[in-house]
């Protein structure tokens, strides 16, 4: 099975203190550290496990600048076979639809049976997977937490309310967005990254992909970010007071009242 996994380089929320910059145009990026979007890690791990089970190859793809190569390498250190970087000045400032159309162009240049993405990104809106499927006219399943391979088809699961599981059958080729918890992504050490440090990663620009530069990037974006700000503080949380026993009793009472406990 030929699998393409769409990944994204994001500021690591666990290791950064995210602050809005002074003019509200962006977040403060000076001291940020970046990593692979957490959901994407699960998608790549799932792809590797599928490949190891049924054969084929795993390609990881991202839209970004030179620095995004780092996340491709990390995923290749995990076990992905190929990396593909979509990189062009014209791509900068793309909205979700722009990104999806770039990915669509790359998918059409290759031959993939299965396309995975993370369910959402730390800094994203969870929109690209669905749009990509629609543009490709592929079937789409979101929030997937289980994949079983059947003949020419997949059985995919997702968690529904109350911890219950739903299973769906889906035709290949298709696009799936992957939920965390579907597997336990393997660790990638410094050593693993160094091993793939010198592997050539192909870069595709607008002409390679055959996309109109004005249809993507800031020029083609129909969704534009207009402001960042810190919302006004609402009413403070209710502080429970008293001895540990009293606090526990009050908490249980409140939880029951609000329907949190049955």
């Amino acid at each position, binding site marked *: 099975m030929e699998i393409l996994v769409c990944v994204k380089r994001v500021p*690591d929320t666990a*290791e950064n203190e995210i602050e809005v910059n002074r003019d509200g145009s962006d977040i403060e990026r000076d*001291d940020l*550290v970046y*990593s692979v979007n957490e959901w994407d890690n699960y998608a790549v791990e799932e792809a590797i496990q599928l490949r190891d089970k049924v054969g084929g190859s795993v390609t990881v793809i991202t839209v970004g600048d030179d620095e995004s190569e780092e996340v491709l390498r990390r995923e290749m250190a995990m076990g992905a076979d190929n990396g593909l970087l979509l990189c062009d000045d014209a791509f900068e400032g793309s909205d979700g639809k722009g990104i999806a159309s770039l990915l669509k162009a790359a998918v059409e240049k290759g031959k993939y049976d299965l396309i995975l993405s993370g369910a959402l990104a730390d800094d994203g809106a969870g929109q690209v997977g669905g749009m990509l499927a629609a543009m490709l006219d592929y079937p789409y399943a979101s929030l997937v937490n289980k994949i079983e391979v059947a003949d020419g088809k997949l059985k995919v699961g997702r968690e529904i309310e109350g911890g219950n599981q739903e299973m769906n059958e889906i035709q290949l080729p298709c696009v799936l967005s992957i939920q965390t918890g579907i597997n336990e*992504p393997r660790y990638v*050490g410094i*050593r*693993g990254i*160094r091993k793939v440090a010198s592997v050539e990663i192909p870069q595709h620009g607008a002409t390679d992909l055959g996309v109109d530069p004005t249809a993507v990037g800031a020029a083609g974006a129909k969704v534009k970010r207009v402001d960042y700000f810190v919302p006004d503080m609402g009413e403070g949380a209710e502080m429970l007071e008293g001895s540990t026993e009293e606090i526990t009793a009050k908490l249980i009472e409140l939880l029951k009242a609000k329907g949190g406990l049955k």
Partner: protein
Amino acid sequence: MAGVAVFTYIMAIRMAPLVKAAPDRRFDRIPQRIFNVLKLWLAQYRQPRYKLAGVVHIMIFAGFLILSIRSCSLVVIGISDSFVVPGFGGLLGDVYNILKDYAATMVLVACAIAAYRRGVVKPERYAVPAKYGKDHTAEALFVLGLISTLMISESLFEASSVAANVQQGLHAESLAPASLAWFFKTALLSTSVETLQTIHIATFYIHDLTFFFFLCFLPLGKHFHVITSLFNVFFMRIDRGNIKPVQHGIKDEDLDNLESFGVKKLEDFTWKHILDFYSCADCGRCSDNCPANAVGRPLSPRFISIKGRDLTFKNYPIYPYGSPFKKSENLIGTIYEEDEIWSCTTCGACEQECPIGIEYIDKIVDLRRGMVDDGLVPQSLQKPLRALEKRGNPWGKMEKKRADWTKELPEGVTVKDLAKESADVLYFVDSITSYDDRMQAIGQATATVLSRAGSDFGILGKKEKDSGNEIRRFGEEMLFQTMKEMNTDAILDSGVKHIITADPHAYNALKNDYKGLPPVEHISQFIARNVKSGAIRLKSANGDGKVYTYHDPCYLGRHNDVYEDPRSALDAIGGLKRVEMERCRDRSFCCGGGGLMLFYEPEEEQRMGVVRVEMAAEAGANVIVTACPFCLVNIEDAIKVAGMEGKMEAIDLSELIAQHLQ
């Protein structure tokens, strides 16, 4: 002859995995190694740490040493009747004969006691939990029976000859009074000479057959230690606090070229580590002292060895003759489990206790290196490891906030930033003291103590990275190397002449894992030294009504032998009432582990810290003093978990000293 041949064959097969194993460097520092042999092997130095078992073992061991000469000469006597061991013809021979009669008697008595302990008392530490296979009592009793047979047959052989000679009025050797042989002789005096003849010959054959059977039986199980322990002690680790290189003979800068990292298959262990497997006598002392085992984590060091030995025996079969060696499989998932290997805090209690120098920490670290290389790292550890890679601390806090703790210092205390100024001394703070709200108090106390003692010191600030003590011990060698390089550069650039830290994990890493740094000192050593010189003067604790006990941090005590300085620092506080816990000094009980161990989520029935806090209460203490931020985290948490708030408190040595500065 057959006995010797079989024994040689078995030993040759047993040597095979040692030859195929990874290299190890164990032929250095020969005088130290000989000293270890004399102390641990010949003098059985660690045996009496368990009093009764230790004394019984010493009796059997000493008896064996004495009787080995006799047993060998008996073999030759079978061929040549008049054989005498060279040099044993005269007085020496007579003395030896008396000695060996008593030795045989002593061994028999010791066997009886040992059998009673094994068969009736059944101490807890010999038990084999169901998941680890069958009980080993039968083998132990069988061997005790063999030894007893040897002793009885040897004595009867001697006694029957002497009794016959006495009856015939011939010259008879005198037997040591009240020895086993002497009793037999006395009992046999009225037996006919013919019967004595038969007994003499029969016991000779019984003795020799048993001797060779025993010899060939030794390499088949836990009694292999009778042969291997001498070598195991000779080759045992000499340094402590250190970790073996990924592969002996490969320099740090060439590590990238290695095909695979760590131990994945049996033969990836070094030959000394396989010799360890052979040498394990199954005494259970390691596991009896292992904190992970004590709180029900899925780790028992004893079975790291036993399972390793069973696999070695299985993969290198002796019977039937000519069996091919088996292909090695991954150890993780077959004989060892991931959780088992992650459960170890590397506290070193097992190695401290082992009477014959079996190593565990290096094996655990090597297995972890293998798991890290294969990506098998629990999610709970992946996050802090990634944060260390990105930010140089396991919480992923910003580098620029590393020195934030210096914003709240007592009046008159200033901490230099070595990026801007120079100083004689570097205070290496390390991550937890830099970032943890509670532990920052240790940093502030340490700075206060250093400052009041007149030390010219500073910190690296945002240039400091995690010391990496646990990064290395959790198997992420390359990340450790990165930290080591960055810290080494920063330290050498700062031009300091001396390093002080209040974190024993940092102390250990800088002292034992880093190379080419100025001398490193722990704050407790600094305090003890400056109290002595008068640079630090302390108020008395009179009337605080508290009873203090000192908890030895593993990386200060066991790994670096710093036991006295923290105690003398405490005792320098006049009127401070201090008691010792039963498990103190080199038997200290790990609080739960530091560094990355704080992030690991083990399966366990109880927290180590809770067990430790209970030990302190049992000793009659109501304040636990420690000298390590990780110990303080674990013990303070444990006091809460145990519901002992108000009854027990924990404090770091540096804080206590800072409170009592004059």
